[in-house]
């Protein structure tokens, strides 16, 4: 069994409003899994169901091969989207309290706190009260609280919100290291660039239903447009003249100094190699690649048409 988490046909309604409808997904061990969807799609409800904060109306969840019980909660780390801290506790006191709540002994909690405070360079904050911290500082403390007990499975709901780019990068690196150490991460975010960068697989939920699931490249390939891009130096006229009837210019970006990026659509049986062959000698090719949809494009593509329905 290679699944860390297996969600099967989970449904949940609040006062007749359906929040989750027959959702099924699998998260492999040692991967970073993206949980995507527009606001109100049901992501947070699904996360709460996994954390046993909210009880599902139907369906089941297996954790590391077993039917999930309360005992598994100590193996999960959770950073909720709407996160809070006790404002009048000290940073250290808060981290130790949450560590103990997750099953660490007092001694272990202090050892882990020392490790993570060193790692994030926040030793000076130990005795500060939470209310004295900036939003970004509090976010770091919250992240540490979520990973302090070294969970097998980490659930992060919008972990990058409120962070500056440096700290976003810091968190990303942490997640990549955790994956390398065999941990599993479930990441719910609207930051599609991060999804492309660090997620292995993702699921997209919309209007309480799952609408797509797969590896990032599977999701991209399923929605590729057949466009190829060429960055070259030379004359635009020469470029257009060189194209065979098997190609069609889709659009172009002018970079200046006779440099362009042109996106080309294939016609008939024309291939990427055919394109490069006809261009060689006509313009100076700097780079050429297949244009894949970004996760942003996929997200909008999957969600928007349904919204206009």
């Amino acid at each position, binding site marked *: 069994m290679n699944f860390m988490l297996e969600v099967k046909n989970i449904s949940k309604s609040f006062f007749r409003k359906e929040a989750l409808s027959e959702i099924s997904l699998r998260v492999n061990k040692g991967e970073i899994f993206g949980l995507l969807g527009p606001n109100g799609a049901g992501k947070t409800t699904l996360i709460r169901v996994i954390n046993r904060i909210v009880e599902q109306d139907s369906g089941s969840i297996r954790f590391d091969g077993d039917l999930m019980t309360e005992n598994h909660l100590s193996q*999960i780390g*959770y950073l909720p989207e709407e996160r*809070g*801290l*006790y404002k009048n506790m000290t940073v250290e006191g808060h981290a130790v309290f949450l560590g103990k*709540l997750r099953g660490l002994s007092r001694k272990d909690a202090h050892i882990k706190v020392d490790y993570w405070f060193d790692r994030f360079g926040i030793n000076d904050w130990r005795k500060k009260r939470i209310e004295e911290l900036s939003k970004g500082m509090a976010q770091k403390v919250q992240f540490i609280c979520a990973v302090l007990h070294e969970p097998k499975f980490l659930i992060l709901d919008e972990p990058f919100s409120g962070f500056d780019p440096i700290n976003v990068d810091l968190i990303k690196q942490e997640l990549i290291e955790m994956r390398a150490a065999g941990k599993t991460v479930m990441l719910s975010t609207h930051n599609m660039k991060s999804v492309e960068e660090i997620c292995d697989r993702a699921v997209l939920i919309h209007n309480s239903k799952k609408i797509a699931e797969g590896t990032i490249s599977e999701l991209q390939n399923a929605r590729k447009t057949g466009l190829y891009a060429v960055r070259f130096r030379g004359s635009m006229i020469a470029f257009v003249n060189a194209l065979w009837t098997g190609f069609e210019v889709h659009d172009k970006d002018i970079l200046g100094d006779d440099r362009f990026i042109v996106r080309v659509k294939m016609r008939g049986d024309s291939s990427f190699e055919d394109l490069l062959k006809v261009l060689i000698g006509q313009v100076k090719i700097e780079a050429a690649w297949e244009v894949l949809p970004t996760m942003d494009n996929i997200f909008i593509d999957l969600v928007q048409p349904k919204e206009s329905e």
Partner: protein
Amino acid sequence: MLIAIRELKERIGSRSFLLFSTLGPLIVLGFVYLMFAFGGQSKQHWNVLVADPTGIMENKMMVNDDKSISYAFANDYIEMEEFADAKKYQLYDALLEVNEKVLSNKVGFVFFRESPSIRMQTRVQYQFERRLEELMVKEFTSLSLKDFRKIKQPLSVNFRDVYDPYNESSDLSGWVGMFYGGVIFTFIFLFGITIMRSVSREKSNRIVEVLLASVSPNQLMIGKIVGVGLSALLQFVVWVVVIGVGLYFMRETLFPDMLNAANMNIHDLTLQVDSQSYQDTAFASREYNQFVELVYNRVQFVNMTVFFMLFFISGYLFYGALFAAVGATMGSESDGQQFVIPLIVLLCLALYGGYYSLNYPESPMVDVLHYLPFTSPVVVMVKLAQGYYGPGHVYEIYLSLLALISSACLMLGLASRLYKNGILQFGHRVRLKHIFKWLKKS
């Protein structure tokens, strides 16, 4: 347990806890001190009419004039009602009735219009007693007055309100019960509000979601109630210790003679009776203050404290669960305002229940309030202090306690459902249909 300990630490660390723990009992002690020291100072000068039909007193009272009391003598029998209403007696504040057998039965009555200060009572009693001693020595003995005072027995003088001679409208012991009940409800209300605020704060700052990922809503609620309850108990213990030590200190140092007339050195008093200033000192030390007697002698502290604790804990669990449920169902912190008013009404109802049973202990309404969990802690305290639970009635206090404990369990069960279903709902308008739905869901 971790939740409870965190709550406890947070409460103990808060400024309001420290203030309430230190200033609260000190204020009570200060109040008690004032009651002791100035036990009902009212009129500074009293006109006392001595009704002495047989002329025993020989129209005399003290050798030295007492500036605060003027005595007039009437050698006829005056009815209490007559004294109360007749015009000619209106200039007198009190009637000292000297019956013909006073020398043998040693009973006198003072009928007053306006409750006299303790000091005034003591003066009248003292002066009357001294005069009778003189008469008794002259009549029955060959002893000197000095020797007689060495061997004399104390005289009983009863002070009666002319409009309420049997003192039916006030029952000091019952008021002690009321005080106990009041303390229960003050603590329950203050700490209940603390629970409610704490729950709604955790909701609004969203820490609750992190907590719920580790503990069940039930554990969270119980932890919170227990934690806040422990801090209430701790605060109560601080109160008891500070007030207890304070009362002991007062008894030993400030008012040592109040409690025991034998502490008074009669011999010295007799020798120095001519000195007005010494008289004042002696009066002050001898004031047998009703309040002092109540605090030190009449209240069955052990019995009351045991039941106080039982009813306090059960009542706290009952109301604590209610407050936690209210906190959990609120959509925002400001929703709390609208809930506070009905809760205050509930509190007032409970206190009124206590007051009602103070005045009408036998009424059927009190029987109902006695078993109603909302009111039973205060009603039982009042009845206990009134000495109601004598033979044949003892089972009632246990029945009431059982009813309260069962209600607390039921309330905890209902509250845990509301808590579980309401704790993660934010920013909604609280509707009754939601509450019923949450209650129905397990």
